[in-house]
């Protein structure tokens, strides 16, 4: 063997910089980092950034950290996040085991149904709970008529934790079930032959093997609890419960003048807690994938028999669905079709379509509906297009740039919608050439697209994962350039994946409410932010009608997605 040849570290052969790829990464970083930078900058000023007198100072942090309301909000948030995690993780794991591994009746049609809470807007859900089970809700009053009393208080911290916990079960289900599916059935069959029953198998074999996925979903739920806004705004407010996001929201009017610096300081606190959680999730997600590769084989999965627990489990699942989907949604729909409701009102006498007619009388509400639809359909397509451009730019590219982009994509996840919306408002105020765009739907679209960047990228990369690298290499060897291969092989092969992503982004954009709150103005109305602002004015009739429209839009998207066989998770 000749020794004179350089052994390692031969330089990369084609030195040409891939400009298209670098360009896409630079544009993405700008869109992601500018809002973060502006919040950071604002948090260290002693006045709003547009005031010439604004100086660098720690005043905002000092004020916020000394505020007893902030302390209470922080404690409440921690209790809420912890409580809902404790509730959602065991129940979600059990649900996943029941649906994936056992002979639970109706598990085929239950699968998409249990994911519904993910696609419902939290403000709509929260509103639904108020009109169903609030002090004068439909079911509260009916229970009083029947039994003389309704012994619950919807506006307590316990209720908030319970509702948040129950509505976040699908997230746990999502990750645990896909890990369970990747597990070979033979591992369980071995235990079954050794004489273990379904429950034993669940606790001794299946659930321990998907522990990384469960751990991941626990961190995810805790993180989502930390960012909770809609549920806490509507269910917490009457009882005086503040969480971090609602504290931020209330700050707007606290001092009478725009207290941007305080909002920025709170936003930074939220981001500072969220980032480590996002990073932890990323680490855990990698670990959960690695764990699943230690699996058995055998695709035919004979479901484990639940025996006499079969119908008991089925009833429990239905009970949960009743409490998290049926109860709030039936309230929303009932409330939308009555003129008023309260003690002594008889349902048959108040039925009406007036609420929907009223909706049409307000041009801003009509605009809100049209905007939401357009934003979800066209904006959703554009967003998927951008995600695809970024995904393709990073596809099969090993370099410092692509690793940087991996981290960039995570940053928006650490910014709750409310904070991101605020940040984008400031971007549009601060960067003068962008100012005219603030009152157009572009501002909303940009904010939505950035907030959901990580989710969108996950959809795109799971579509790209379906394309075997050999199919692309075949094109290269035959003589097609990289670009040509992308056009002729990669993109046609991920077409269905892109369509599915579009439908999912459609639903997400229809559902989204918090990101638009600060950007709400004439021309930028969307259903979600309109509900938040109308709720504050007490216009319950209109909120109910808007909620119905919102739910129907999501339902339409969901129906098409299921019809086309789109997988509801990336």
């Amino acid at each position: 063997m000749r020794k004179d040849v350089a052994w390692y570290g031969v330089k990369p052969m084609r030195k040409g910089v891939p400009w298209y790829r670098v360009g896409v990464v630079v544009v993405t970083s700008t869109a992601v980092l500018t809002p973060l930078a502006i919040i950071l900058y604002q948090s260290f000023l002693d006045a709003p950034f547009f005031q010439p007198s604004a100086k660098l100072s720690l005043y905002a942090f000092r004020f916020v950290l000394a505020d007893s309301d902030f302390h209470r909000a922080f404690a409440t948030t921690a209790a809420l996040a912890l409580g809902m995690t404790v509730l959602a993780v065991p129940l979600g794991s059990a649900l996943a085991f029941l649906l994936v591994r056992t002979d639970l009746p109706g598990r085929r049609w239950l699968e998409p149904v249990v994911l519904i809470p993910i696609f419902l807007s939290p403000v709509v859900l929260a509103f639904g709970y108020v009109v169903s089970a609030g002090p004068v809700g439909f079911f509260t009053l009916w229970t009083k008529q029947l039994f003389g009393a309704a012994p619950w208080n919807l506006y307590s911290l316990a209720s908030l934790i319970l509702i948040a916990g129950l509505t976040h079960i699908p997230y746990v289900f999502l990750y645990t079930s896909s890990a369970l599916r990747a597990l070979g059935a033979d591992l369980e069959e071995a235990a079954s032959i050794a004489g273990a029953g379904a429950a034993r198998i669940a606790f001794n074999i299946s659930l321990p093997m998907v522990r990384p996925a469960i751990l991941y979903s626990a961190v995810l739920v805790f993180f989502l609890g930390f960012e909770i806004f809609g549920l806490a705004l509507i269910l917490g407010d009457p009882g005086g419960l503040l969480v971090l996001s609602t504290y931020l929201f209330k700050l707007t009017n606290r001092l009478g003048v725009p207290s941007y610096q305080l909002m920025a300081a709170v936003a930074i606190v939220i981001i500072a807690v969220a980032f480590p959680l996002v990073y932890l999730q990323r680490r855990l997600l990698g670990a959960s994938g690695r764990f699943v590769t230690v699996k058995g084989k055998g695709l035919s999965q004979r479901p484990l028999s639940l025996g006499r627990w079969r119908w008991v489990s089925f009833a429990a699942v239905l009970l949960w669905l009743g409490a998290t989907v049926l109860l709030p949604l039936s309230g929303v729909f009932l409330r939308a079709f009555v003129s008023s409701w309260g003690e002594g009102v008889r349902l048959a006498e108040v039925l009406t379509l007036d609420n929907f007619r009223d909706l049409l009388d307000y041009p801003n509400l009509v605009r809100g509906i049209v905007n939401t639809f357009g934003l979800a359909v066209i904006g959703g397509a554009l967003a998927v297009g951008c995600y695809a451009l970024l995904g393709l730019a990073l596809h099969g590219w090993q370099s410092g740039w692509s690793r940087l982009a991996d981290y960039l994509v995570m940053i928006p996840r650490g910014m709750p919608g409310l904070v991101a919306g605020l940040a984008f408002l400031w971007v549009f105020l601060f960067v003068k050439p962008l100012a005219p765009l603030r009152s157009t739907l572009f501002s909303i679209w940009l904010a939505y697209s950035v907030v959901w960047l990580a989710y969108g990228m996950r959809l795109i990369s799971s579509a790209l994962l379906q394309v075997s690298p050999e199919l692309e290499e075949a094109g290269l060897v035959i003589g097609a350039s990289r670009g040509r291969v992308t056009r002729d092989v990669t993109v046609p092969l991920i077409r269905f994946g892109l369509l599915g992503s579009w439908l999912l982004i459609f639903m997400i954009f229809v559902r989204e409410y918090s990101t638009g709150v600060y950007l709400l103005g004439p021309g930028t109305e969307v259903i979600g932010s309109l509900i938040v602002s109308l709720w504050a004015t007490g216009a319950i009739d209109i909120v109910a009608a808007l909620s119905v429209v919102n739910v129907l839009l999501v339902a339409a998207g969901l129906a098409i997605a299921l019809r086309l066989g789109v997988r509801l998770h990336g």
Partner: protein
Amino acid sequence: MDKLLVTNVMKRLGPNDVLKGVSFELSRGEVVALLGPSGSGKTTLLRAIAGLDHPDAGRIVLGDQLLFDSQTGVAVPAERRQLGLVFQSYALWPHRTVFDNIAYGLRLRRVPAAEIRERVNAVLKQIGLEGMAERHPHQLSGGQQQRVALARAIVYNPRLLLLDEPLSNLDAKLREEARVWLREMIEHLQISAVCVTHDQVEALALADRVLLLENGRIEQEGTPQEMYENPRTVFAAEFMGSNNRLGGSVTEIKGALAKVTGPGWELWGQLRAEHRTGDAATAVIRIEKTRAQDSPSDNSIPGKLDTALYLGERWDYLFNAAGLRVRVWGSGAPAPKPYWLHFPPESLWIF
């Protein structure tokens, strides 16, 4: 068709040296098989020739074109090497018809539409898939897909054809037919080809020359006959065929012959490695050269029949001879009687 020259190619993946300096030459119109167990670096070498991976060091020249040279930093990208590659998975594009799969290389080369139709139809006829042009890959059988993959790789007259385990995705019966067909096609096309395989029968049948790779190095190279009948190492002997192995020590050397002795036996054979009297040695013989007979002769050991397996075309006898396990092939059911196992000295290799 051009001559391929691969010089001292090295590749390191993580902590492993996958290729530790491999050199070989491929003349015009020749078929070379890169044979080796998994992890021997054969696929890495093929991908380096194709331009899909770049080695850490070495030089690859095709005809008068330098494809890769680590010292001058030249690396022609895969799409400009003008090669044809048949993937192990075939890698047919599922969204294109058979016709469009094959025609793609011609379209890239801006061949006029009428000529494309003509050439694709001609190659479809050649591979016996006329009338299947409008089908999609998933509507074809494994064997048909393999033919389409070959057609796609040769339709634009590549300078060199690369085949990555071309038959491994077919079931056993089909593989034999495809082997014959593939050899005929290659001869008919008079194309130079490099074929990666882990199956020695495939390598023997397809190639003019076999390169046996082990641990990132070339263990031995030669014609299929040389490789089978004249292995230079135990590894080569073991990899190329089925053998009986007897471990002992050298007790006598006479010119090219040596005597190996173990507990209760001694046999003469061809000396294949530098040995001195007293060295430990391994005697290896092809199963088909080992014979079972009724009476003792030169170079034989008494054996007791343990069991016999009926394999259809032949019987596989298992003997216990002086504590050694020896296999012999025979044509009929064995009779329960004492046997002597004969090891012809010209066929017994001593390593």
